[in-house]
């Protein structure tokens, strides 16, 4: 079968190490930058990007802060402590859940095993029975939902799924950023909403596969955050219809990772394993060559969610690609693949310079207009020769 074949290809790229698990955070990153084949292949092959970045000579900054992670875990544990006491109270007080509804299922472990595969099956079984109305559970703690991403099954783990809130399934996300005076950090809320949208899509697809109505999953999720400067949790129902649409569309557009990996040469490798004597199994040069063979699509947002971003940025700077200045600059320079070209076009006056390609005539016209405006607004200063630096390239879009 072709899927098995492609898994083999991706697995052989990864080498003997165990694959890194795919997370909702990773999927939102993938959908945020769907054009990046490099990330798609690395994620599908389950390569540890942080280690890879270090091997390529540009280690990721700090990664996720251990303090933030610990705080997140502690807050979640607190909300779920004492038989989900706080969570039940929130549901009762804010969502009018009757006091009789207290049945829960802890899917964090099945028969003493934490294997995601087992937990996914147990989740599936239970969801099937819940949707059919055979069983009743108010809360599913840490269910595991499978989701096909770029031709590979990822196991996702929402903090909880609440059933029977207005008769529908609701994804519950417990986040430790504070809601102060009714306001939460918009960027963090947006990130949580994207994650929840991924979970909702996974849950809907699973129900559909089991022969139930996907509309049983509510298009809104329950966000639980600490209130003000206390540890008291406070809930909010957030509508994520837009995110579901957007991420669903991006997911459908993600090219299959094996298609992307196919053009790689036969000796390509992303093997990060270390031999018994402590020397790496593959040289850094081999890794660099393979990574370079994968198309990248660097944007200034990348460092926010990708460990490999510093490597890609260095590449983009070296090639003077307009993307590194952001999507707007790239969109303003269609057909021009380097900021150096753009600067040359500005500096060579129209009639006497190199002949302008008719396709890019409009762009060149706009570039020169922008440059004129920029020069007019600039205080008089000795003329500087134009070098391909960030600031001068920036004036292209004025």
């Amino acid at each position: 079968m072709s899927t098995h074949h492609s898994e083999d290809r991706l697995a052989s790229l990864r080498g003997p190490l165990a694959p890194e698990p795919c997370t909702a955070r990773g999927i939102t990153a993938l959908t945020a930058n769907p054009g990046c084949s490099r990330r798609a292949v690395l994620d599908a092959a389950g390569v540890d990007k942080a280690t890879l970045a270090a091997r390529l000579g540009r280690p990721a900054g700090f990664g996720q802060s251990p303090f933030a992670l610990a705080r997140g875990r502690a807050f979640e544990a607190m909300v779920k402590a004492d038989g989900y006491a706080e969570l039940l109270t929130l549901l009762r007080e804010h969502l009018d859940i009757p006091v009789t509804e207290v049945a829960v299922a802890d899917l964090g472990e099945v028969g003493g095993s934490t294997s995601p595969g087992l937990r996914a099956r147990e989740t599936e079984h239970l969801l099937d029975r819940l949707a059919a109305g055979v069983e009743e559970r108010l809360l599913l703690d840490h269910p595991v939902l499978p989701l096909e991403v770029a031709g590979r099954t990822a196991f996702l783990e929402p903090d909880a799924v609440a059933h029977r809130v207005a008769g529908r399934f609701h994804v519950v996300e417990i986040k430790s950023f504070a809601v102060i005076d009714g306001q939460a950090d918009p960027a963090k809320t947006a990130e949580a909403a994207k994650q929840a949208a991924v979970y909702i899509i996974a849950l809907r697809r699973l129900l559909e596969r089991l022969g139930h109505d996907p509309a049983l999953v509510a298009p809104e999720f329950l966000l639980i955050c600490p209130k003000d400067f206390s540890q008291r949790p406070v809930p909010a129902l957030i509508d994520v219809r837009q995110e579901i649409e957007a991420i669903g569309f991006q997911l459908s557009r993600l090219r299959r990772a094996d298609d992307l990996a196919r053009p790689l040469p036969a000796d390509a490798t992303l093997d990060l394993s270390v031999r018994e004597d402590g020397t790496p199994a593959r040289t850094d040069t081999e890794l660099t060559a393979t990574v370079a063979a994968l198309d990248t699509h660097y944007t200034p947002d990348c460092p926010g969610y990708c460990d490999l971003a510093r490597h890609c940025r260095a590449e983009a700077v070296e090639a003077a690609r307009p993307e590194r200045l952001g999507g707007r600059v790239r969109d303003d320079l269609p057909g021009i693949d380097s900021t150096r070209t753009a600067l040359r076009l500005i500096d060579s006056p129209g009639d006497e310079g190199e002949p302008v390609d008719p396709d890019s005539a409009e762009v060149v016209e706009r570039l020169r207009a922008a440059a004129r405006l920029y020069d007019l607004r600039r205080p008089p200063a000795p003329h500087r020769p134009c070098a391909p630096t960030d600031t001068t390239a920036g004036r292209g879009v004025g």
Partner: protein
Amino acid sequence: MTPSSEEPRARAAELRAVLREAIRDRDRALADRVRRELRAVETPRRAGVDAAVGGGTGRTAGDRRRPPVRDPVRRALVLLGAPAAPKLLSTVHGAFFDEPIAPSRIASLRRDEERSFAAKGLTRAPYVCAALTHDRFAPVRGLLALSDWPLERRIIGPLGPRTDHLTHVRNLAARVRDTRAAGGTESPAAAALLRRFALTVPGSHRTEDGPDPDPDPELLVSAAEAEARLHAGVDDRHRRTAAARARDRLPLDRQLFGAAPMRVIRSVTDLP
């Protein structure tokens, strides 16, 4: 917990057993600690002083050199009356007895107890054992129970986490009520715990008491009992059927410490 002349002797026997285990397990730090403690217990004069002073828990300051974690855990479990997590056991012990138990010390307790049971059977009962899931009888993550509780009490069904929490709330509130009735006052930690719990039980506050009053233990007891009655029918049925099945299928040691964990035969990537 009545102090008597029997207590030091029983305690010494218990310490000796722990010492044997520690030596067998090559845990030198534990062995040293237990040896020191054993010496303290076995010194007759010391024992006499203990018996003479012996109010409350029957311990003097000198005797409190890190006793095995098993006793405090057992004491907290007896008070709570239902399976509980290490963190709660630690808090409860700190609030109602002398000091909190370090949760890290509780972590290995269940395995130690299982080993001890395998070596000596029921001679050291009651053991600190596991609560079991109602479907597969696996030990529930992070919950400890007592082996002399009936199996029904150690089964955690879908409603189990809530009903057990209500049992905890009820028993702790009743203890505070009794302390007050006897003319004492509860510790600040106990009051804080009760206040936290009262927020999660409907009907535990009167509206005329204002927004954030100290909970009335009497009212909390009745509120917890009232909610527990709502769940009792379904929950008891789950517990009874599961316990009957477990008695049928599992040997005694598995009934106490839970069925062996499931193992994945096929690798995860092979799943359909």
